[in-house]
């Protein structure tokens, strides 16, 4: 990992992209990495564009915002169109497969998978889409050990929802092929 690994999570308010971002920050803290997590959203409780950011580093992180992300998750077309314009070279982009890949994006760097559908049909709860995404992201990028990630999830979900979230995490991981893991894994130093 270079000095700073920048992750951006974008979608519509209510999709839980902030929680997805917080879970990676929590996993970083558990692993002893430095992290800063922040978000930007509109005044609405549901709808509107929601963006969350997690920065991982082995060193002190001063500037708290993402400038050129190494990774982007986009769950809506609007957020994909907006945030695919500012990416670092070689950035990995994960999108829901209902979205179309903008022309400016290199399709070989895009992981297009059925996140929303998997949450609704395989896990059985549409609102677990963010956790499905977390599972898929970690499987592709290989950022954290599975148990660390699960601990990160546990610290931020209501008591009694561990099982369904565990199911969502592994359903997300199952969406990633070994070839994708090989192509997109990040070196954690």
């Amino acid at each position, binding site marked *: 990992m270079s000095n700073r690994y920048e992750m951006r999570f974008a979608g519509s308010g209510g999709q839980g992209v902030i929680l997805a971002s917080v879970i990676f920050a929590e996993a970083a803290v*558990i692993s002893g990495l430095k992290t800063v*997590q922040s978000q930007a959203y509109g005044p609405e409780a549901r709808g509107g564009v929601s963006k969350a950011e997690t920065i991982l580093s082995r060193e002190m992180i001063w*500037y708290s915002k993402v400038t050129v992300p190494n990774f982007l998750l986009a769950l809506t077309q609007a957020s994909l169109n907006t945030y695919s314009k500012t990416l670092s070279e070689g950035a990995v982009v994960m999108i829901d497969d209902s979205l179309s890949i903008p022309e400016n994006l290199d399709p070989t760097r895009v992981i297009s998978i059925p996140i929303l559908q998997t949450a609704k049909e395989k896990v059985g709860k549409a609102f677990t889409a963010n956790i499905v995404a977390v599972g898929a992201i970690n499987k592709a990028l290989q950022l954290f050990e599975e148990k660390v990630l699960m601990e990160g999830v546990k610290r931020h979900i209501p008591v009694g929802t561990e099982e369904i979230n565990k199911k969502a995490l592994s359903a997300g991981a199952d969406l990633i092929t070994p070839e994708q893991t090989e192509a997109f894994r990040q070196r954690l130093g």
Partner: protein
Amino acid sequence: MSKAVLMQGNEAAVEGAIAAGMRFFAGYPITPSTEIAEGSAARLPQEGGKFIQMEDELASIAAVLGASAAGMKAMTATSGPGFSLMQENLGYGAMAEIPCVIVDVQRAGPSTGLATSPAQADYMQAKWGTHGDHPVIAISPSSVLETYMLIIRAFNLAEKYRTPVIFLMDEIVGHMREGVELPNPNDLIINRRKMSFHDGANKQCYYVPEGQYVPAMKPFGQGERYNITGNAHDESGFPTNSNEIAGKLVGRLLDKVEKNVDDITRVDEYAMDDAETAIVCFGGTARAVMSAVLEARTAGKKVGMFRPVTVWPFPEKQLRARLPQLKNILMVEHNHGQMLLEVQRVAGREKPVCFLGRIDGTVISPQDILAKLSEMEENHHGE
């Protein structure tokens, strides 16, 4: 496994306040300070404290002053629109000498502005928002851990000087999460207001011994009855129209801060020893400034950061001490130029002061600052 926990700035404000002894919170939740009300509502009952959601911000600060007068360490939290509504009673707290902490997590204004976006445009309001000459202490944190540590200091100063202390946060820090290792509670220094249990005419409730500035506080509602008012008052706490007494009173209120400025003022300096350009900033802006300073240093530029941690009173003496070594100063803040006025006042005609501000609710980046530094080099008379 690391001992660090992931914590948001607003959560750190709650935990720090509780560590400082806060046992009463009254507020009216407003973005981006809402997590402070939520956290206080969850945590205070666990600590034997009380949380009240009030009908508005006027009532919130009134309840806080009442709780503090009755002996509790009390706090409220708000953002710009609510901070405006609290101004009248903030002055009351200063006049009646009631310690409390008022958190303002600044967002983009004016008015309701951009509710979820950062700004630092309440800086001058913190000083001049309430009418009349009054003492002001305001502190501004730039990280999650510092939020925890400094809110304890805010309570300590409020108790020591019997005056409201403004904890001037911004959305950048309030909504930012970082891994923090909190200090052992036994290592913390916690002040408590000096109390007076003496009754009788010579120990009136606002009696101040010669050479001192802060009256010991009589417990309100216990023992001797006394009066609290926002009117000019004598030592008994009852209103007076005496110009002499009023002038002496306001003078003493101001002296509490002015005569103790060295105790109250704190700055954070980075790479200032040989700096020829000082970047002045406060609160969340320091994050971008630090990144820019580190990068400028790598490029061999003699740039340092001068960050007032106590933002009121402005650390005039500390900045003045740096003037001789400096070629110029760059003020960076998320407003149209507020602390800039203080920096210009201190720099006078000696040193050029340049400015980089932001008023659109976005965050100033290290690249913005580096570009400004290059522009200053090209045009080294500044603006």
